[in-house]
């Protein structure tokens, strides 16, 4: 199984119920487009993250389908409404079977 680099997320530690909070995510990944040639003229095979998902206490709140035009180390910023304390789980999957996962906890008062 191919390895995906280190994921990083920024989620606030706490929020008030009903508040909209910001989520920033990034994962280390070459996002090799498959359109690039190396220095001996060979096409570098495509290797990209294809899907990214975020769940909040098991419920999917954001999903992205990436194409080769997403930059190296894919970055996303999005928002969600604080409903209850719990766990956000972030998952990236690439086209060579690589998977990266990270989770973050939020306390909602």
């Amino acid at each position, binding site marked *: 199984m191919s390895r995906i680099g280190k994921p990083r997320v920024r989620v606030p530690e706490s929020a008030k119920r009903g508040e909209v909070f910001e989520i920033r995510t990034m994962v280390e990944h070459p996002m090799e*487009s498959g359109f690039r040639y190396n220095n001996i003229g060979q096409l570098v095979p495509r290797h990209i993250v294809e899907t990214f998902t975020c769940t909040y206490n098991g419920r999917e709140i954001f*999903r992205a389908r990436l194409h080769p035009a*997403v*930059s*190296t180390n894919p970055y996303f910023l*999005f928002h*969600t409404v604080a*409903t209850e304390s719990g766990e956000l789980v972030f998952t990236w999957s690439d086209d060579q079977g690589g998977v990266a996962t990270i989770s973050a906890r939020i306390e909602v008062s």
Partner: protein
Amino acid sequence: MRLDIGRRRALQALAAGACLLAVRPASAASAELDPVLREVFGGREIREGRVTLELPRLAESGNVVPVTVSVDSPMTPQDHVKSIHLFAGKNPQPRVLDTQLGPHNGVARVSSRIRIAQSQQILAVAVMSDDSAWSAAVDVVVTITGCGD
């Protein structure tokens, strides 16, 4: 009475003009994009408006171009954004990013970083809960193309 009809005609003419204006940017979207938009959205009409696409007009490097798409939507269960899509018609692969959202997101705003192969128009399309599609386009000039890295 005659005055009234005159006013009605004037309003109709104005409305027709507004429609033309609204349709123009979608048809101005490069020919490369037409089959792609058909593939993603079927024959659905894509209107201009409700979407704000923030991109640097001049990107020094096309490899990492910050992009933010926001959509004017209350994000309620009855009226929300279902998905946001980005297209670059002159990239080797015009589809850039597809995201799925819902009322639980609170605000319809997504940021990312994308590659732009050459100077071109970038198109953002949002699909609403009533299945209507809205768009915004921005012309971007790149000085270093975005496929070398």
